[in-house]
């Protein structure tokens, strides 16, 4: 890290350059099937007319991102042809020449420039008045490292392979714009983001409510409650116009071609199961675990008839639907309702007790976390949607810092199963240690006066992750259970992490709900 560092942006550039160089070193590492997914999309968008983009199905990895992302791939493909023509042939399934790998990896690294810019803007929004002359102990510096060197983003984008960097860049930039009171820009950026990757729809409620409440209503009553007469029709029209224009630009062509239903069906594949092959550490992981335990116990004590139980290998299989044995099966509608209910309090909080952009950010994180907890077919990677915005809050208050440490450590740990090849095991452990040691020591230094950030129970919980990792990656493969129960490490990891993430979610929720009460009391 930039230890001494000059004034102004010098240290920031050094941090950004440093992490970019690290990303370059990651080029030859393992990449997952997502690499082939994106290569396939390059080929599809390069060779076919727009009308066939969402119909092409040579590869099993069909285009299932919104149109802007397709256009993004289209633009990339025009650079790709100078690296290797062959990667742009649709029939070249699983093609990964050196030039292809190099090009795709570099494209991720270069588009991350947007993320770096967004991180810079976010650092400017942070309250930097804390006493502490040391550069290393300035909230800005800590935030810059927490964002730029984020472990999850590094392994998901630069080893596993995805383009989350610039997408999160768009999101953080729009958050920063809202902090800077440039609401329209923020709304525009978020609308564009939604048409790049629709997973961000999870946090859309926060945006809607915040913009409506704090931008469209220009004034509050003296006690902080809503003043209906201050509603600005101009502002809501502008917002509406932005959203409609962006959507028209993105979906318009497909609407004209009459392909909208096809596009939608590709974007929302409800045919996939409740959980991913590896359970994301959320509520459903706990639910499945309870179900499985009940089934095992039931068979052992003859409550259940083994004949009637459907064969369900829940983890370590393909993405498929599966049925619960004891507990009722979960339908997409049920998850939707659960998600909706869990988001509701935070949104209410944002409407009735507005606290400016910080309240909005809390609501955004809660939306992301709640949908992660209860969503249908959630990927473990979606935890980044909560971790990255929470970094902004963590450097401002010790309470959030504590929650952040629990959430990032468990969330990042739950990403471990993404990388399973032997050389990458060392890589991920080293990178994880780097980020974890940094986040703990820097946040503790930042809030040295406020006492410990975690209580003893939380500390023990986090320390227990070490033996868990040792058991899963080192001890378990040597035991005879490896062949009989290959899913046990995954199951343990996801259940154990689910506990921590649920805890962090509840703690954040409680803190948000109680905090707003005290603020109102103050206002009174």
């Amino acid at each position, binding site marked *: 890290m930039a230890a001494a560092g000059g004034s102004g942006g010098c240290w920031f550039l050094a941090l950004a350059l440093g992490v970019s*160089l690290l990303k370059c070193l990651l080029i030859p*590492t393992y990449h997952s099937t997502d690499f082939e997914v994106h290569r396939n999309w390059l080929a599809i968008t390069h060779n076919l007319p727009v009308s066939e983009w969402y119909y092409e199905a040579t590869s099993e990895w069909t285009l299932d991102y919104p149109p802007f992302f397709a256009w993004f791939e289209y633009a990339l493909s025009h650079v790709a042809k100078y690296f290797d023509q062959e990667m742009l042939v649709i029939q070249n399934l699983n093609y990964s020449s050196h030039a292809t790998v190099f090009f795709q990896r570099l494209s991720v690294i270069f588009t991350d420039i947007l993320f770096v810019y967004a991180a810079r803007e976010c650092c400017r929004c942070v309250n930097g008045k804390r006493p502490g002359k040391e550069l290393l102990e300035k909230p800005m510096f800590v935030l810059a490292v927490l964002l730029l060197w984020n472990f999850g983003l590094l392994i998901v984008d630069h080893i596993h392979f995805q383009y989350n960097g610039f997408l999160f860049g768009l999101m953080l930039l729009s958050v920063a714009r809202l902090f800077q009171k440039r609401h329209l820009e923020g709304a525009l950026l978020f609308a564009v983001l939604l048409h790049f990757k629709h997973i961000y729809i999870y946090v859309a409620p926060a945006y809607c409510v915040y913009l409506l409440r704090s931008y469209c209503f220009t004034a509050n009553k003296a006690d902080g409650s809503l003043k209906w007469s201050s509603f600005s029709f101009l502002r809501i029209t502008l917002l509406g116009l932005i959203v409609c224009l962006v959507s028209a630009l993105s979906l318009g062509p497909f609407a004209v071609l009459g392909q909208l239903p096809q596009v939608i069906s590709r974007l929302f594949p409800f045919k996939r199961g409740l959980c991913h092959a590896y359970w994301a550490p959320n509520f459903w992981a706990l639910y499945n675990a309870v179900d499985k335990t009940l089934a095992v116990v039931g068979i052992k004590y003859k409550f259940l008839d083994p004949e009637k139980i459907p064969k369900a290998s829940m983890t370590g299989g393909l993405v498929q639907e599966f049925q619960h044995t004891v507990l009722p099966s979960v339908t997409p509608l049920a998850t939707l309702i659960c998600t909706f209910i869990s988001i509701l309090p935070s949104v209410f909080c944002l409407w009735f007790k507005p606290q400016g952009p910080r309240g909005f950010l809390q609501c955004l994180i809660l939306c992301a976390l709640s949908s992660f907890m209860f969503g249908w077919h959630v990927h473990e990677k979606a935890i980044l949607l909560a971790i990255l915005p929470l970094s902004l809050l963590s450097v401002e208050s010790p309470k959030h810092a504590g929650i952040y440490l629990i959430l990032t450590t468990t969330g990042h740990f739950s990403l471990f199963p993404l990388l399973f090849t032997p050389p990458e095991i060392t890589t991920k452990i080293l990178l994880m240690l780097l980020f974890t040691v940094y986040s703990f020591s820097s946040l503790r230094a930042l809030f040295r006066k406020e006492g410990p950030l975690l209580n003893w129970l939380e500390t023990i919980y986090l320390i227990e992750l070490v033996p868990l990792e040792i058991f899963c990656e080192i001890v378990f493969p040597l035991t005879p259970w490896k062949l009989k129960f290959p899913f046990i490490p995954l199951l343990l990891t996801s259940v154990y992490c689910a506990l921590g993430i649920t805890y962090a979610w509840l703690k954040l929720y409680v803190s948000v709900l109680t905090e707003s009460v005290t603020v109102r009391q103050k206002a009174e």
Partner: protein
Amino acid sequence: MEKWSLMTITVLLGLIVRWMVSFGSYSGAGKPPMYGDYEAQRHWQEVTYNLPIKQWYFNTSDNNLQYWGLDYPPLTAYHSLLCAYVAKLINPDWIALHTSRGYESQPHKLFMRATVLIADLLVYIPAVILYCCYLKETSTKKKIASALCILLYPGLILIDYGHFQYNSVSLGFALWGVLSLSYDWDLLGSLAFCLAINYKQMELYHSLPFFCYLLGKCFQKGLTGKGLVLLIKIAFTVVASFAICWLPFCTEVEQILQVLRRLFPIDRGLFEDKVANIWCSLNVLIKIKNVMSPQTQLKLSFAFTFLTLLPACIKLTLQPSLRGFKFAMISCALSFFLFSFQVHEKSILLVSIPVCLMLNEIPLMSTWFLLVSTFSLLPLLLKDGLLLAYVVTTLAFLTVCETSFSIFEKTSEEDLQLKSFSLSIRGYIPSFKAFPKIIKSLFIVSVTLMGILTLMSATLTPPQKLPDLFPVSVSVVSCLHFLFFLMYFNAVVLWDSRNGRNQKKIH
């Protein structure tokens, strides 16, 4: 933040870069029949595991010395044996006699890379950390910064984790030696240095400074009293540690002689490949190998080496000081590299590590030297397919040095340690201009030149008449740099102690 957590982060960064570089290719990957240093190390495991010690260094039907015969001292052989035992546990095919020749696979690569990382973690990295933690008169920040820079020095990382060697072991032992000497644990220091020599004979480049420093210390204490006792103790330690390392070979004189013959192959000529030393660079103008007999070459190179390292060594013996010792390590190793017989391009690391120790005192010049030393390895790295790692680690190193030491701002005469030197020059030439500006612009010109040459060697194909155009120009350019650095470091050494005494008077 606390010191220990910053140090942990530093070590982790160093480890991550090392491990990332090891994902790249290694020397001789997929190139039968001879392969490269990777195969050499694997072959040594095979030989040491399967053959009795008496046959290790001899040409037998089971041990063809023409195929990567063991030519390092016993400790390397023992280390190979140790690795071989682990390899045997994992997969016996890796070290099977004869049949394992040229064995290559992903798991095996992982194993070999891991052995380097473990050796590094046990010997070199702790030495660096301890050295930086106990730097005198430096702030915590500076300590961390120097540790980070030393750990990220690209030359060593690329050779050990890219090309594949175990330099960090011998260099690490030498560092332990320096570390012990700075605490006046002279016996421990000599033991560590003996281990270094017995791991790699190239460590002899550092032997004169160690010898002169300890001798000077004995002189200082008075050769009749305490000094003599110390001298005897040190001599005993050295002899004992050598004896222990060579114990299995001490049964016959022929054994020892054969090992020595393997260690110092005089018949291999003045230089091989493209080395950035004087002989190889002069070869562009005069074909030395054709003009002179090998015996004359040997004498000539010996004379030059001896003459160039003499001043620093005499100075050190007369006025032994830690600072002088470190500088003498640099200038002696550099003289050896430039003028001695049978030098490998990788031997520049022996100069680089002492230079690393100077990073916090003369940031600009050290960074510059370290960049040049890495650049001089470029032809080798290109052959191994390590261009990406080379570019990335070099840029990272430059970034880290610049942000942690702000090298461009520290160009005053004091920062360059040239105050007394330029004062004495001004005694003769009053109009002598100050160094700082010249040095700074020279640095920028040289970095640009290295960048352009790297770009050219990586992208252009050389003209058919001159197939070696780029490697030769790289080595000539680096050689010129090294000559300049030899003069610089000698100037610092020779004028340094006088300055030190003046300072003492002032205080």
